[in-house]
C-alpha cells in the first residue's frame, strides 16, 4: 500500500518542475533588494538607506501578510472578485500540488509570495525621499492585501479576468499595472518632495542604478521563466523572451536618447532594461520570440514619452513607476490580444491570428486593473493619512530621511563620532534640531 501512495505523489509532483521552481523563487526574492539598489541609486545620497529600506520593509510586512491572509485571498476558491479564507495562516498548504499543478502548493505559495513582495516595493518608488517610514510600513501591509491579493486573484487565482480568458503570464495586471497606477495615486496623495520643481534633484549613484537593473533582469528569468510553474514549453518560451525583449527595448531607447540629446545615457539604459522586462512579463509565455522582440522595441516609445513628460508636471511620481511599470505593463497586456499564437502557447490566438475576443478581454483587463489599483490606493492612503502623517516635515526632508528615520547614514565618515558606551544613551532620543 505504501508503494501505491508513493506513486500517487510521484505522478502529481514533478521533480524537474519542483527543482526549477525552487530556484525561480529564490531568483524572484533577490529582485526586491535589487530594486532597493536600483531605487537607492536614483535618489539623493542623504536618502539612500531610507529608499533601500522601503524594499526591505516590503519583504518584512508584505511577506508576513501574504502568509497570514494574502495568499488565501488571492488563491483560495472564493468569488470572482476575491478568494476565500480557507488558506489563511497557510492552512491546507502542504506538499500536495494544487489541482492541475505539478509542484507542491507550499512552493507555489512561496513563489507567489515573492511576487507580492516586489510589487509592494515597486510602489515605494513614487513616495521616496519624503514618506515617513512607519506610515509606509502600514501602507505596505494593507496594500499587499487590499490591492495586490485582489488583483492576483483576478488574474491568477481563478477570478473574473482569468475566468473570462484574459491572459496574463507573469503579472501584467497585479504586478506591473497594479504597482504603476498605485504609484500615481500614492504620489498624488503623499504630495511632492519639498524641493520638487525648485531644485535639481539628481540621482546620486548611477552605478547602483545599472547594477540594480542588471540584478533585476537576472531575477526576472525566475519571475517570467517560473510563471509556467514547470520546465515545459511556456516556461522555456517566457525565459527566452525575457532575454530577447529587453535587448530590443535597449536598442530603441538608445536611438531615442540619441535623437533627443545626441548621447546615450546610462540611467536611460537601466530604465530600458526594466521597461523591456516589464512588457514581456504578461506576454512572455504567449507570444513568439520574433513578436517578443517587436514588442520590446515598441514598448520603449510610450514609456519614454511618459518619462519625458512627467517631470514637467507637478506630479512628483519620483522614480517613474507609472512609466516603467504601469505603461509597459499596459502595453504588454494589450499586445497579447494582438499577437498571441496558439501554435506557440497552446492556449489562445490574438487578433492577428483571428481571435478578436482575446483583444477585447485584454483591453478590459488593461482598464479594470489600473482603475482598481488607483482607486483603492488613493482611498487607503487618505485613510492612513487621517491617523498618522504620511510625510516627513520640510525640515526632516532637508536633513535627509536616513538620519531622521533610521539614525544611520549610507556614507558615514566617522568624523566627529564619539563612541557612547553607556546603555542609557540607547534610550536617548535622536537629537536633531526641531523646525
Amino acid at each position: 500500500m505504501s508503494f501505491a501512495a508513493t506513486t500517487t505523489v510521484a505522478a502529481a509532483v514533478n521533480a524537474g518542475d519542483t527543482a526549477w521552481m525552487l530556484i525561480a523563487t529564490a531568483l524572484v526574492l533577490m529582485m526586491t533588494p535589487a530594486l532597493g539598489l536600483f531605487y537607492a541609486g536614483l535618489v539623493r545620497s542623504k536618502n539612500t538607506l531610507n529608499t533601500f529600506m522601503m524594499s526591505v520593509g516590503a519583504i518584512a510586512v508584505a511577506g508576513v501578510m501574504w502568509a497570514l491572509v494574502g495568499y488565501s485571498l488571492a488563491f483560495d476558491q472564493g468569488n470572482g472578485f476575491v478568494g476565500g479564507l480557507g488558506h489563511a495562516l497557510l492552512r491546507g498548504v502542504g506538499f500536495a500540488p494544487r489541482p492541475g499543478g505539478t509542484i507542491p502548493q507550499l512552493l507555489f505559495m512561496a513563489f507567489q509570495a515573492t511576487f507580492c513582495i516586489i510589487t509592494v516595493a515597486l510602489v515605494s518608488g513614487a513616495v521616496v525621499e519624503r514618506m515617513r517610514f512607519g506610515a509606509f510600513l502600514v501602507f505596505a501591509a494593507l496594500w499587499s492585501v487590499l490591492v495586490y491579493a485582489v488583483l492576483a486573484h483576478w488574474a491568477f487565482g481563478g477570478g473574473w479576468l482569468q475566468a473570462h480568458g484574459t491572459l496574463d503570464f507573469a503579472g501584467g495586471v497585479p504586478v506591473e499595472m497594479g504597482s504603476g497606477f498605485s504609484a500615481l495615486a500614492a504620489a498624488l496623495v503623499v504630495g511632492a518632495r519639498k524641493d520638487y520643481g525648485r531644485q535639481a534633484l539628481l540621482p546620486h549613484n548611477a552605478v547602483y542604478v545599472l547594477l540594480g537593473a542588471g540584478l533585476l533582469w537576472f531575477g526576472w528569468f525566475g519571475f517570467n521563466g517560473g510563471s509556467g510553474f514547470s520546465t515545459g514549453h511556456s516556461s522555456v518560451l517566457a525565459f527566452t523572451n525575457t532575454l530577447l525583449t529587453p535587448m530590443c527595448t535597449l536598442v530603441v531607447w538608445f536611438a531615442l536618447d540619441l535623437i533627443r540629446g545626441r548621447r546615450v545615457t546610462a540611467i536611460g539604459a537601466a530604465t530600458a532594461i526594466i521597461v523591456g522586462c516589464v512588457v514581456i512579463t504578461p506576454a512572455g509565455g504567449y507570444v513568439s520570440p520574433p513578436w517578443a522582440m517587436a514588442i520590446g522595441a515598441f514598448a520603449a516609445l510610450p514609456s519614454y514619452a511618459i518619462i519625458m513628460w512627467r517631470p514637467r508636471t507637478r506630479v512628483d511620481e519620483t522614480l517613474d513607476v507609472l512609466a516603467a511599470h504601469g505603461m509597459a505593463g499596459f502595453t504588454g497586456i494589450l499586445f497579447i490580444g494582438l499577437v498571441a499564437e496558439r501554435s506557440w502557447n497552446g492556449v489562445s490566438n490574438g487578433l492577428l491570428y483571428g481571435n478578436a475576443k482575446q483583444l477585447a478581454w485584454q483591453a478590459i483587463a488593461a482598464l479594470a486593473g489600473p482603475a482598481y489599483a488607483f482607486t483603492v490606493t488613493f482611498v487607503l492612503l487618505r485613510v492612513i493619512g487621517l491617523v498618522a502623517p504620511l510625510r516627513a516635515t520640510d525640515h526632516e526632508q532637508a536633513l535627509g530621511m536616513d538620519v531622521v528615520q533610521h539614525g544611520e547614514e549610507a556614507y558615514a565618515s566617522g568624523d566627529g563620532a564619539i563612541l557612547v558606551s553607556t546603555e542609557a544613551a540607547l534610550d536617548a532620543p535622536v537629537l536633531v534640531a526641531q523646525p
Partner: protein
Amino acid sequence: MKLVIAIVRPEKANDVLEALYRAEVRGISMSRIQGHGGELDRVETYRGTTVKVELSEKVRFEIAVSDAFVKPTIDALRAGARTGEVGDGKIFVVPLEQAVRIRTGETDAGAVTPVDDA
C-alpha cells in the same frame, strides 16, 4: 575690500546661492566642511555601536567683495541661511589685503567687481 566667509547648513546652500544671485553678488567659492556650532549632537546606531556625532556637514562660502557690497552680501547670506534654530551658522568678515584677477592682472576693487558680460 573684505572677505566674507559664511558657514551654513548644507540644506540651505541652494537658498543662499539664490539669495546671493538676487543680491547680484557674483564670484563665489563654496566648499563642504564639517563643523560644530553648538547644536545638539546626533545619535546614530550601527549594530551594537552607538555614536554621538558631534560634527555636522556644513557648507562654507567665501566671497571677496568691495566695501559697498559687504552689507548686501551679509543680508543675502542671512536671508538664505536662517532657519531660526541653533546651528544656522556664522558669517565672518575679514579685511582683505590684496586681490588679483589672474586673467587680466587687475587688482583690488577691479578684481572683485564682476565683469559685465552684456
